[in-house]
C-alpha cells in the first residue's frame, strides 16, 4: 500500500467531496436547492453532482425556501435523506416556520416514528464583502430550537467529516458553513479513507495554560492567530473549537476552563442573545470556583450586519480578542 501525500485542498472542495461520497454511498441522499444543479451552487459546493448523479438526485428547485425545506420534509418522510442548500444565511428565514414547527419537531411529535434525516446547509457569517442579508450569523436562532443539531466546521478535514456525519445522522442537522473559510486551504487527501467525525464533540485546537478561547467556525482561525500573538504578551492560550453547538460538549469545554481558570468566548454573531451568552452561562454554572475572572465575550456588535466597507470594524479580530484576554483580571493572581 502506497501512502498518498497530502495535498492542499479548500474547505469548498472537501464539502463537495463529502456530498459526492454521501450520494455515492447511499442512493437515498438527494441534494436540492436554488442553483445547485447546472450551476453547482453560487459557491460551487454542489459542482458536478447533477452531472454525476442526475437532476433527480441534485435538483434545481423553484425559488422558494419554505418550499424547498417543506418538500424536503416530505421526501424525508418517504425515506430519503435530503440535503438542502440555503443560498445565504438570511435567505433561510423564509423557511423558518418549516424549520421550527416541523423539521425540529416531527420526531418528537410522532414519538420517534417519523424521524427527519435532513441536512440543511447554510453558508453563514461575514468577511466576504457581501451586501446586506448575505453575512448574517444566525446560529442563535437554531440553537434556541430544540430538535435540531447545529454543527459548523472550521477546518478542511472537519468540513468533510462533519458533513458526512450530518448526512448520516437520523436527526435534522443545521450545517453552518463559514463562507469566508470556503477558500481556506489545508493539507488534506480526499483519496484516503476519511474520518466521519462524531457530532457533539469539541476539539482543542491549541493547548495552552493561561486562558481558554472558546470559539467555532469562522472565528477559529482568528483565535489561533490571537493565541500566537498572545505569546508575545506572555499568555499561553488554549483554543477550543466547538464544532457542534447542539449538542454542546460541556465536558471538553469545562475540562479546559477548569485547567486554565479563565475563558473568552469568541464569535461573529451579535453579542446580545447570541451563542456566547449560553456558553458563558453554562461554563460559569459548571466551573464557577475554578474561574479567576468572569467569562468574557468577544462578539459582533448588536447591530444589523454592516455594509462591506465597514465590516472590518464589526468582526472580532485579534486585537479585540487580546483586549478581552487582558481584561481577565490577571492582577488578581499576583
Amino acid at each position: 500500500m502506497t501512502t498518498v501525500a497530502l495535498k492542499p485542498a479548500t474547505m469548498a472542495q472537501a464539502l463537495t467531496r463529502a456530498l459526492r461520497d454521501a450520494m455515492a454511498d447511499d442512493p437515498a441522499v438527494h441534494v436540492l436547492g436554488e442553483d445547485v444543479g447546472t450551476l453547482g451552487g453560487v459557491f460551487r459546493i454542489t459542482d458536478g453532482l447533477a452531472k454525476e448523479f442526475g437532476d433527480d438526485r441534485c435538483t434545481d428547485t423553484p425559488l422558494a425556501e419554505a418550499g424547498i425545506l417543506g418538500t424536503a420534509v416530505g421526501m424525508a418522510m418517504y425515506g430519503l435523506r435530503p440535503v438542502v442548500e440555503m443560498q445565504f444565511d438570511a435567505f433561510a428565514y423564509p423557511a423558518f416556520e418549516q424549520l421550527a414547527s416541523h423539521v425540529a419537531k416531527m420526531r418528537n411529535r410522532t414519538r420517534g416514528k417519523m424521524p427527519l434525516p435532513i441536512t440543511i446547509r447554510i453558508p453563514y457569517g461575514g468577511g466576504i464583502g457581501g451586501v446586506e442579508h448575505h453575512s448574517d450569523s444566525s446560529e442563535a436562532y437554531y440553537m434556541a430550537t430544540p430538535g435540531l443539531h447545529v454543527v459548523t466546521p472550521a477546518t478542511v478535514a472537519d468540513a468533510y467529516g462533519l458533513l458526512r456525519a450530518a448526512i448520516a445522522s437520523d436527526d435534522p442537522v443545521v450545517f453552518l458553513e463559514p463562507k469566508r473559510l470556503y477558500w481556506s486551504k489545508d493539507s488534506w487527501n480526499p483519496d484516503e479513507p476519511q474520518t466521519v467525525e462524531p457530532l457533539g464533540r469539541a476539539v482543542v485546537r491549541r493547548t495552552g495554560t493561561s486562558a481558554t478561547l472558546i470559539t467555532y467556525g469562522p472565528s477559529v482561525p482568528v483565535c489561533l492567530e490571537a493565541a500566537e500573538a498572545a505569546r508575545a504578551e506572555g499568555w499561553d492560550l488554549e483554543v477550543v473549537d466547538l464544532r457542534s453547538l447542539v449538542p454542546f460538549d460541556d465536558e471538553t469545554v469545562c475540562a479546559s476552563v477548569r485547567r486554565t481558570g479563565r475563558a473568552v468566548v469568541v464569535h461573529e454573531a451579535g453579542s446580545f442573545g447570541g451563542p456566547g451568552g449560553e456558553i458563558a452561562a453554562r461554563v460559569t454554572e459548571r466551573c464557577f470556583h475554578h474561574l479567576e475572572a468572569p467569562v468574557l465575550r468577544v462578539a459582533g456588535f448588536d447591530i444589523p450586519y454592516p455594509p462591506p466597507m465597514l465590516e472590518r470594524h464589526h468582526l472580532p479580530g485579534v486585537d479585540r480578542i487580546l483586549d478581552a484576554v487582558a481584561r481577565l483580571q490577571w492582577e488578581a493572581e499576583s
Partner: protein
Amino acid sequence: MTVMEQRGAYRPSPPPAWQPRTDPAPLLPDAEPYRVLGTEAAAKADPELLRRLYAQLVLGRRYNTQATALTKQGRLAVYPSSTGQEACEVAAALCLQEHDWLFPSYRDTLAVVARGVDPVEALTLLRGNWHTGYDPYEHRVAPLSTPLATQLPHAVGLAHAARLKGDDVVALAMIGDGGTSEGDFHEALNFAAVWQAPVVFLVQNNGFAISVPLAKQTAAPSLAHKAVGYGMPGRLVDGNDAAAVHEVLGDAVRHARAGGGPTLVEAVTYRIDAHTNADDATRYRGDAEVEAWRAHDPIQLLERELTERGLIDEDGIATAREDAEAMAARLRERMNQDAPLDPMDLFAHVYAEPTPQLREQQDRLRAELQAEAEAEEGTAR
C-alpha cells in the same frame, strides 16, 4: 458592436423565448360547482359506493357530535368539528388506495379515522396526551397539521420522492379556504406543478377562517381559479355532494397516478358548527346563513338520492345510525378512561439519542417526581 452598427442587422420579431407551454383553457374550472346527487350523473354512480359513502357520513357526523360532547366533559382539550363537511372528509379518505398518503389539516380527524386510523389515537392531539397519537406509516396518514398550509409542501415532497423511487403513490393534501392565503400553499402548488408530482390538493372552502369570511380572504372568481397560475387543472365541486366530491377527487387521483401531475380541487361547503368548541360563531354570522346550509346537508342529500332510487330503506338507514351510535358509545367509553402518561416521554424523542443535556434534565425531573411521590405517600400515611 455599438448600437448604431447593429442597426443594419436588426429585424423586428416577437420575443424569442415566447411560447405558452400549456393551454390554459382546460386548466380553468367550470363556472358552477360539479354536482352528482339530484342530477342525471347520479344514475351512473355505483350504488355500492353510494351506500358506503352514506354509512361513512352518518358515522362521521356522529363522531363529530361525540367529540364535541367530549370537550364539554373535559375529555378533549379542543375539537374543531367538521359537521356539515363530512362529504369532503369521507371522500378524501375513500378516494385513495391503501398505499397512498393523506395529509390532513387540524380539522380533518374524520378523514383520518375514515382512512382506518384508530378513532382514539386520532384524537390524541386534541385530547392533549401527546401530539400525534398514531404511527403515520401504519395507514400512511401524516400528522394532523396545526400550522396552516405547512403540510402541503410535505405532501408534494413525499409524492415526488415516491415517484422518484418508482412507487405508485398519490398524496392527497387537505386545507381550508383560509389556508390558501398562506405562502406555503403557493409554494407547494408551484413545486408540485413544476415536478409534476402526483398530488391532489383538496381545499374545503367552508366559507370562513374562524371569523373571517371568504370575501375578506380572496377576491378570486373561485379558489379553483388559482390552479391555472401553476399550470395545473382546477376543479370546482359541491362539497356537500359526497358522490360528486368522490368522483372529482377520484379523477384527480387517477390523473396523478397516471403521471398527469397535480390537481387543485375546491369543494364548496360550510362549517355548520363554530370554529371549535371554544369559538362563539354568533359573533360573526347569522342563523339564516347556517339554516340555508343545513338545508343542503351532505347526509340528507345522499339519503334522499338513495331513498328515491330505492338503494336504501328505513332499515338500512336505521342500521347506519345504530352503527354510528355503537361507534360513539365505544369512543365515549375509551375516552372516559384516563390517557396513559409518562413524563419521561418528554425527553425520549427529541433526538434519536437524548443529548447529555437532555439526560441531565430528565434526571432532574425524575428526581422531582420521586420527591413528589414520596411527599404524597407521606401525606397519605
